């Protein structure tokens, strides 16, 4: 089983990386881009095949380690 964890900055938190990316794309002539945000994805290989249980334990991992919940929010997808 795989768990895909998407981690992004909470709305309102400054995203200097995203801003710099948007500006750089503009400089390269991609004027259709009006904004950018950068986040992380963590892909976990997991034993077992109980999706419910996996999700619960990934939530715990996010709270304990993977996400910095002070400024980041996360979303979990479990793939068989």
């Amino acid at each position, binding site marked *: 089983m795989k768990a895909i964890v998407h981690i992004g900055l909470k709305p309102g938190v400054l995203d*200097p*990386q995203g801003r*710099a*990316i948007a500006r*750089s794309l503009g*400089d*390269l002539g991609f004027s259709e881009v009006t904004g950018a945000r*950068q986040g992380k994805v963590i892909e976990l290989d997991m034993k077992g095949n109980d999706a419910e249980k996996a999700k619960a334990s990934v939530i715990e991992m996010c709270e304990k380690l993977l996400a910095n919940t002070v400024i980041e929010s996360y979303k979990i997808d479990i793939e068989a």
Partner: protein
Amino acid sequence: MKTAVIQFPAANCDRDAITALEKITGRESTLIWHRETEIPEDIDFVVVPGGFSYGDYLRCGAMAARSPIVNDLVKKANGGLPVAGFCNGFQILCEAGLLPGALLRNKNLKFVCKPQKLKITNGNTRFTSAYGGQQEVVYPVAHHDGNYYADDATLSKLEKSGRVLFKYVDNPNGSARDIAGICNEDGNVFGMMPHPERAVDPLHGGTDGINFFKSILESR
């Protein structure tokens, strides 16, 4: 020898590079702004400095490698202009395609700043000839993403063709085959994570870097 240092927003070792170049050449070095489109014709040697161009956002060196001045740098380097990139400058040269491979996050994930022992693995190049057979040097390192990566074929090709100029003694960042510094096929473009420009002053980081610059000066 007329030298120039490219100035990217927040590539903060431009002063280190200029200090070293001026000390060794005895001449003023030119700072070239990243938005310029041309490197002046009379420049004999260009340093792409270390630091954190664009804050190292997205990927180290990625944004700087797409700036107008680097377009011209690539053209002139392909025409034979000697170029050296240190630290972030090495990352930029890789990102710009002037050197093969890429720099990943240090193996232990930490920024590392310390004097680093290096083995000179090819003393017969325009960047190392003045060492006169000296085997080891110490240059400071200071980076977060210095873990050199290239596929195995590329690594073997680099080693076989004498394009690996320096290797780490006690690899500080996980670089493949302990590679610290490499040059391009024509031998005029060089990049490394350690800072020879911070090793030209006994009070600062030692003097082992002086012969690096002397090599370039003498090989002209």
